[in-house]
């Protein structure tokens, strides 16, 4: 038994201490008054609203267009078609359309404003530990070759790639989105229509959005055709008829993906395609049952957000997150500086 005993402490206070107004802060005066939240120093290309509660991609220019199209089409339907159809058919028509409209809008907003499953970047200690494990060659003055690690998942060989931006080996099914500059778990695709990546945490919202949008547009189309038939008029019907066709194809495609537990990314790359010519190359994540795959993808447990947007930064120790402007870790950056100086010297000697 040792003479000195460690007094029990709350370990959480070591990593995220509560605000201590009386403590002296070594940082600039702007930090003395207010503790910063983690979203304010988030290294990815995202934008945050409502003090970190809402997260969107930096380029979300098409989302207003998506919302606008949905609102305008549905608005025209409710204003011009519903009164006639209620009078001639049933009051259920606007009710059903209303429910579908609510589903579409809510699931769209959920898809756009939810963290898709972003993996926080490795802190310097962790990055250095990984570097130590794989880098045996000592100092190098050029960018190291791509690093991969092979693992076995359900007797299937899977290659894990090293992400130079996030400084870690990407977990299986994770991909780095170049638009958002984040590694996203179970990455499906970056959707400009929703203005966000579609990944592990928001795929079910995205699927609900495209399926309910298909139903809504089909329903509106059917109602408009009925209206036209009863009234023999043109005008609004053409606009709605044009609107209805595109929504069906993504929902059919994604229904296939859900049933086979695949992501768009894997399907496009043909990761688990039997056409690759390798025997027994099958999807190790599939449960080999359409119903189970659907249940798992759409109704599985909701994973938590890993980026802790609203957590407070410790005032005396803001973690040196590696940003895109300073991508390389210190030991590589130092070598690059040397390389730059060497290049400059060489250039001077050539011209001199």
């Amino acid at each position, binding site marked *: 038994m*040792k*003479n*000195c*005993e*460690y*007094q*029990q*402490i*709350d*370990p*959480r*206070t*070591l*990593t*995220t201490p509560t605000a201590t107004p009386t403590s002296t802060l070594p940082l600039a005066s702007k930090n003395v008054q207010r503790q910063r939240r983690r979203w304010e120093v988030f290294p990815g290309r995202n934008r945050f609203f409502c003090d970190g509660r809402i997260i969107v991609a930096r380029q979300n220019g098409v989302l207003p267009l998506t919302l606008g199209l949905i609102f305008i089409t549905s608005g025209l339907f409710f204003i011009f078609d519903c009164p006639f159809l209620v009078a001639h058919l049933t009051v259920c028509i606007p009710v059903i359309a209303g429910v579908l409209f*609510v*589903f579409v809008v*809510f*699931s769209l907003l*959920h898809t756009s404003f939810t963290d898709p499953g972003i*993996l*926080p970047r*490795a*802190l310097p*200690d*962790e990055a250095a*530990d990984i570097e130590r494990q794989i880098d045996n060659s000592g100092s190098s003055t050029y960018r190291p070759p791509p690093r991969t690690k092979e*693992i*076995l*998942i*359900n007797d299937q060989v*899977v290659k*894990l790639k090293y992400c130079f931006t996030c400084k*870690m080996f990407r*977990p*299986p*099914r994770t991909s780095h989105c170049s638009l958002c500059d984040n590694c996203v*778990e*179970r990455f499906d695709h970056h959707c400009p229509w929703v203005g966000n990546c579609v990944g592990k945490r928001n795929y*079910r*919202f995205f699927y*609900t959005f495209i399926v309910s949008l298909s139903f809504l547009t089909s329903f509106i189309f059917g109602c408009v055709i009925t209206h036209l038939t009863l009234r023999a008029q043109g005008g609004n019907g053409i606009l709605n008829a044009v609107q209805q066709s595109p929504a069906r194809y993504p929902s059919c495609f994604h229904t296939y993906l859900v049933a086979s537990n695949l992501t768009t990314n894997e399907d496009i790359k043909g990761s688990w395609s039997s056409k690759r010519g390798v025997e027994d190359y099958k999807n*190790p*994540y599939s449960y080999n049952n359409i119903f189970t795959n659907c*249940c*798992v993808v*759409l*109704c*599985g*447990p*909701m*994973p*938590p957000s*890993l*980026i*802790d947007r609203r957590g407070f930064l410790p005032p005396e120790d803001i973690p040196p997150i590696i940003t895109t402007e300073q991508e390389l870790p210190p030991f590589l950056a130092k070598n690059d500086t040397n390389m730059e100086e060497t290049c400059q010297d060489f250039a001077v000697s050539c011209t001199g």
Partner: protein
Amino acid sequence: MAETHSLQDLRQQAAIASKVFIQRDYTSGTICKFQTKFPSELETRIDKQQFEETIQTLNNLYAEAEKLGGKSYLEGCLACLTAYTIFLCMETHYEKVLKKITKYIQEQNEKVYAPLGLLLTDPIERGLRVVEITIYEDRSSR
């Protein structure tokens, strides 16, 4: 008379000796599971069995959080039927288990790891990528 010190005091006097990172184990798929291989850096500090028990309990808790069953499907279906608005007012099963995990780690730190000069960091603070174990300098060796 035994001398008691808080880990916070010792951080100023006795710096962090090193950190060990227990990586994820993907052999069963993408579920959250950590490797139970005993790191060599901890050989002089803690019993192998104790370490394996801690990691195995953590793995069991994460398996409970991600368990596919009637309860999780019911939660998912209910969420879908309410256009996912219940997530705004209800804590998910996963979040409840994460709180349990935080409590367990705190308890392990207080009872087992802190007296040995070690500190477990909750994996959620590292994006569920690693279990970080901080090794503090052994004052009795000074």
